[in-house]
């Protein structure tokens, strides 16, 4: 698949530390890519390099196959983690100004903004000052500012922080809709549950270095620990189940959490359980959450 964004061997040093150390990844067209890492991992440094706010010391960046140059910011939409708008400016004026800075002519900007504001049901705010809006309302305005010029790459840095569930869903739906239209989204966060829900591929960085990357499902598979969860009825005593190719980790609320030995198959487990008179209501494999993988990997990396 063609890459909208391609980073190759990016290095960024500040005078006393290396913020980004030899990082490479690709964001394909029409996908949502997660850039993960704890605070201070180098996510913002990477984003600032991509948006041409700063420049890398080494490495190449390609946008749609071309080397990054001065006109590329117009193809990128960037919503920084620290949101900011001119407090005293009116919503409409401000959005038109920001769109014009991204290269849209006035009339086109106005027309596109009208469509977006109708979509978010905020057209009546056109003449309101930003300072008169609530924080959630300001987020909506900020999101429109990020996407109005129809960039081929959208970079969202913690887009849901500070949003209530309703507005978070609204923005999430828009992100999916943009993806369907072929827009690529680089989604930077340290909130793992959102990543699992939204991203197809991720890269995990810590201390400026890549720890792991790849498809979310594949990563989860590769980190699985043969854990299974069984919801059952009947069985007063777990002692009869012991000593058979698995360990019981937990038995709570009629649910067993079991870790299988590597040579034991789930079918054998089920058989054994049923033989012991258990009535099974629910049986599933427990994959590690990205959060667990994240914490483990970061701890390993730091230790």
């Amino acid at each position, binding site marked *: 698949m063609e890459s909208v964004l391609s980073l190759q061997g990016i290095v960024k040093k500040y*005078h006393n530390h290396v913020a980004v150390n030899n990082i490479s990844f690709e964001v394909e067209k029409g996908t949502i890519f997660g850039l993960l890492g704890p605070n201070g991992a180098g996510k913002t440094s990477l984003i*600032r390099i991509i*948006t*041409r*706010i*700063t*420049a890398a*010391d080494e490495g190449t960046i390609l946008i749609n196959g071309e080397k990054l140059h*001065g006109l590329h*910011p*117009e193809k*990128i939409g*960037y*919503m*920084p983690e*620290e*949101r*900011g*708008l*001119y*407090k*005293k*400016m009116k919503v409409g004026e401000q959005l038109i*100004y*920001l769109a*014009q*800075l*991204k290269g849209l002519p006035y009339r086109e900007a106005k027309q596109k903004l009208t469509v977006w504001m109708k979509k978010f049901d905020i057209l009546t705010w056109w003449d309101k000052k930003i300072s008169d809006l609530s924080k959630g309302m300001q987020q909506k305005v*900020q999101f429109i*500012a990020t996407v109005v010029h129809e960039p081929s790459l959208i970079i969202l840095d913690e887009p849901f922080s500070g949003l209530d569930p309703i507005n978070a869903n609204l923005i999430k739906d828009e992100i999916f809709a943009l993806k369907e239209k072929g827009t690529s989204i680089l989604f930077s966060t340290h909130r793992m549950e959102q990543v699992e829900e939204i991203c197809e591929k991720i890269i995990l960085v810590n201390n400026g270095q890549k720890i792991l990357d790849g498809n979310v499902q594949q990563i989860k598979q590769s980190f699985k620990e043969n854990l299974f969860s069984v919801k059952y009825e009947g069985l007063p005593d777990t002692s009869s189940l012991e000593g058979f190719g698995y360990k019981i980790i937990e038995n709570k609320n009629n649910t067993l959490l079991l870790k299988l030995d590597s040579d034991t198959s789930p079918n054998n487990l089920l058989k054994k359980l049923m033989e012991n008179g258990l009535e099974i209501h629910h049986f599933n494999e427990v994959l590690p959450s990205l959060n667990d993988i994240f914490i483990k990997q970061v701890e390993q990396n730091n230790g």
Partner: protein
Amino acid sequence: MGKIWLITQREYLSRVLNKTFILTTLLTPLGFMIFFIVLGFIMNTGSDKVKNIVVADRTGILEGELKSRDNLVFDFKDLPLNQLFSLYEKGEVVGILELSSAPDTMQKKYIVQYYSDDQLGIDEIFSIEKAIGKKVRNFKLKAQKLDENIIASLDTEVTIEPKTIKKDKNITSLTTIVSSVIGGIVGYALFFIILLYGSQVMRSVMEEKINRIIEVLISSVKPFELMMGKVMGVGLVGLTQIGIWIILIPSLFFLGTMIFGIDLNAVQSLPASGAAEEVLNQQDKIIQILAELKGLNWWKILPLTLIYFFLGYFAYSALFAAVGSAVGEDINEAQSLTMPIMLPLIFAVYIGFSAVQAPDSSLAVYASMTPLLSSIVMPVRLPFDPPFWQIIISLASLIIFTIFLVWMAGRIYRVGILMYGKKASFKELGKWLFYKD
């Protein structure tokens, strides 16, 4: 370039269409007008209550007549003091003035008694003293048998009339005065404007950094474009405001004169005697001053002053922008960092004042060719027609230095706007200069 223009436009329009701007722009001249009206009023109404003073002239020097301020009425009564005291006690007069004996012709000091329990105002005392002084002088002249006209002819007004030897410019005695006034006003105005709008640039940069819009902006435009757009936008606001004032202040002044019927001559409080003559004299002077103004090299002074203003404004406001980028919310930090910017500005305005008095002193000459100082000192010297080569050197050095300063400010700005939580010391700023992009 298109984006700089967009930024300039926003900076300009968001300020000019702001209520505060409109109010201050309109109210400042109005404030000035009210100030002058009140001032005129105060000047005119020092004398309100009529005071009756009885004069006991035992000498005849006053010849039964004394004229001082309008509110002082003198009543001549050659009665013994105790009878006059009873008048005072009845409240008919506020005091008694007694000239008990005539002065000797060679006497330099002459004492007149004033009896009262209430003091006269200092103005009133002075004016009475002056009026009696005049009478004493006449008395002495008569005693010496001298003709007053001859005495008057002894006082001669001496005027030095400068004549050029090589330059074919006509210099008169007024030229220097007019040049000084124009130079002084221009110098002070430049100082004020650069300071006012430079610090506005600084505050605007701080605002963008504090409300974090900066990151959105510089993912669309280069920091340098943003800085330049801001500097130009605010500069245009300054020009607009000054333009409005240049039109508004004189017309309001004129209007005020019409409506309130303020007599400009009264404000200047001319003495009552010989008023007509004085007015004629004044009109003559005004015509001469106008002629002098016309005689100045406006085609040179105006454009050059504008160029100096732009260069100076750019240099200083770029520095202000750099400081604004380096500090965060802490206004105190900003104050300590603006000190080095303020110093040359303040030195420049003081050197400018001394240049008004001695436009060719070596201090003035060298300062007018030193960048940062020259943007104020040279415009002050311009009405005095400084040599051409000095203007060339001054302009060339200022242009080069301004470009350097703007470049330097841009380097600091680009790092500073993204730097949070780091204390901005001069050492730190110096490091930022050499950061790679």
